[in-house]
């Protein structure tokens, strides 16, 4: 692609993205911040499904661990935000590795339902262990992220924090896909026997991906805690895990930027539908069903296929 065209293809969306929060209402910017958070968590679920064929409904657990670690270390102990986030990631990845090792030997529906069982276990433990999590009363007073005195305390400011992080993670994901291990992931999905014969340790790769997914969920959770400054169990129930799975499937698990579309969909849609009451949950479910039957590659995949179809080869 010629340099000028390339500059336009990347530059214009970038300008739009940068200008958007200044022209939109505070409420919309708030939604867009959530879209950014969900992009990060949803990316974890998306690549697990797209690259490894694993349906994970456990992401809410890691999201919660990240949030609660941040709450604990930053609100209760007054430590700086990187400590909370690092603790969350450390704990999440440890649990993912420990639990993942045995359950990732399962395949197909067994594995998916095992992750759902994990999601429920997490939900109940977050509730029961209220000495740790504050239960339904939650933990408040979580400090803002404020390096060098500049506090990310408004939706506008947080927008410019969360989206660059999300973008960075998408780039890292893209790099992974085009590397030796990314190739290995695609190969093992294609023909597990041939992959085994070439020395690929499928199980180990799956565990690594699961751990990575958990890290993303945790990071998103920590950011979430710093944004809303108050966390309680309601945010980390199984329906949160369902939202992450939904946005992954809708956005498309075979494109790198699919999660962005999915995240935008699930944050913006309830807004439009709010007049009709609590109907958005049903619309989401219907969208999931429609996507599975009609658009198996999600919006992202559909757009990519359309783009490729029109380019004469």
């Amino acid at each position: 692609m010629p340099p000028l065209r390339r500059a336009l293809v990347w530059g214009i969306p970038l300008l739009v993205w940068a200008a958007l929060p200044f022209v939109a209402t505070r409420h919309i910017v708030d939604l867009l911040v959530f879209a950014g958070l969900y992009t990060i968590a949803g990316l974890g679920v998306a690549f697990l499904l797209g690259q490894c064929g694993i349906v994970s409904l456990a992401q809410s657990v890691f999201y919660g661990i990240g949030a609660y670690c941040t709450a604990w270390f930053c609100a209760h102990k007054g430590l700086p935000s990187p400590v909370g986030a690092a603790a969350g990631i450390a704990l999440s990845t440890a649990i993912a590795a420990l639990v993942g090792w045995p359950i990732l030997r399962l395949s197909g529906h067994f594995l998916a339902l095992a992750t759902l069982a994990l999601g429920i276990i997490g939900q109940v433990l977050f509730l029961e262990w209220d000495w740790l999590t504050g239960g339904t009363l939650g933990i408040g007073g979580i400090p803002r992220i404020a390096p060098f005195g500049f506090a990310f305390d408004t939706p506008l400011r947080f927008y410019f924090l969360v989206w660059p992080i999300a973008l960075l993670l998408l780039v890292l994901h893209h790099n992974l896909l085009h590397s030796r291990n990314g190739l290995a992931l695609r190969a093992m999905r294609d023909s597990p026997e041939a992959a085994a014969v070439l020395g690929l340790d499928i199980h180990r790769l799956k565990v690594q991906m699961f751990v990575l997914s958990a890290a993303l969920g945790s990071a998103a959770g920590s950011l979430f805690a710093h944004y809303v400054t108050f966390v309680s169990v309601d945010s980390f129930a199984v329906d949160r895990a369902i939202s992450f799975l939904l946005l992954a499937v809708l956005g498309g698990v075979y494109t790198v930027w699919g999660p962005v579309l999915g995240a935008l969909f699930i944050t913006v849609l309830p807004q439009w539908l709010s007049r009709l009451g609590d109907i958005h949950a049903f619309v989401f479910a219907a969208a999931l069903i429609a996507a599975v039957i009609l658009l198996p590659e999600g919006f992202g995949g559909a757009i990519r296929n359309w783009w490729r179809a029109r380019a004469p080869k």
Partner: protein
Amino acid sequence: MSLSLLFQSVLSGLTNGFVYGLVGLGLASIFRGTRIINAMQGDFALIGGITAVLLLERFGWPMAPAFAAAVAVGGIAGWLMEVLLIRPLRRRGGSEDSYLLLTLGVAFAVSALVLYTVGRDSHSLPGLGGEGIVVIGDAAIRTHALWLIAISLAAMGALRLFFAKTALGLSMMAAALDADGALTTGINVPLMRTLTFVLGGLVGGLAGVLVGPLVTVYFDMGLLLTLKGFAAAILGGLANPMGAIVGGVTLGLLESLAIVTVSSGYKDVIAMAILIVIMIAMPNGLLGRRLRKGG
């Protein structure tokens, strides 16, 4: 722990166990018939339960017709799901993942629909035998619970007869074991698949009206019930749907035991942990035979 407390918990474990067994029976039947794990089996129970609630409370139907209709509606839901959703996916070449995502989606949709139309409240259903209690030794069990066990056993027996003795049942088994072979003998295989889902829906709806009087009917009861039913089905061996009842009872008893030894808040955690352990340690159930990779 006193003996009477233990006995009481055995009774309640037994009761719950039969519910899990019924859900598992539906799951295993659908799996055997179509190789699909129906992640919304528990929501068939929700559909049955909520239909009974609506018929009783809003339309003032008497109990027996309302329950019967509720079970029938479960069957209709199964039929609709297979024809409107499963078939199109099959035509488009669904993978194992996509069927799972589809049934999960339907589970969420049913739950969300109930939430939207009826709200978050729990709704109670009258039990068979009303509020009557039967006292056994030092423990008490609701008359309805005894009916539940009896009806579950009857359902299991009826299904067994159906698959072994009736022409339709045998055709369904044949279609499940060897679709191409069944086609050549004139069996309408797509219809058999649809009927499998209808059966699953009926059994699920039955589970709903039976469990409703005990635990009330609420919008998100489906998922947990599905998982516990799945645990029951695996314990009993997915290949043999009747084993799900045995698996369910085992699960129910373990769960009850856990409640009295640990705490009731952790009841679901323990059930879920048991599910995970079973899947890893004995994917072929208690009677375990040839080793499969699970799923």
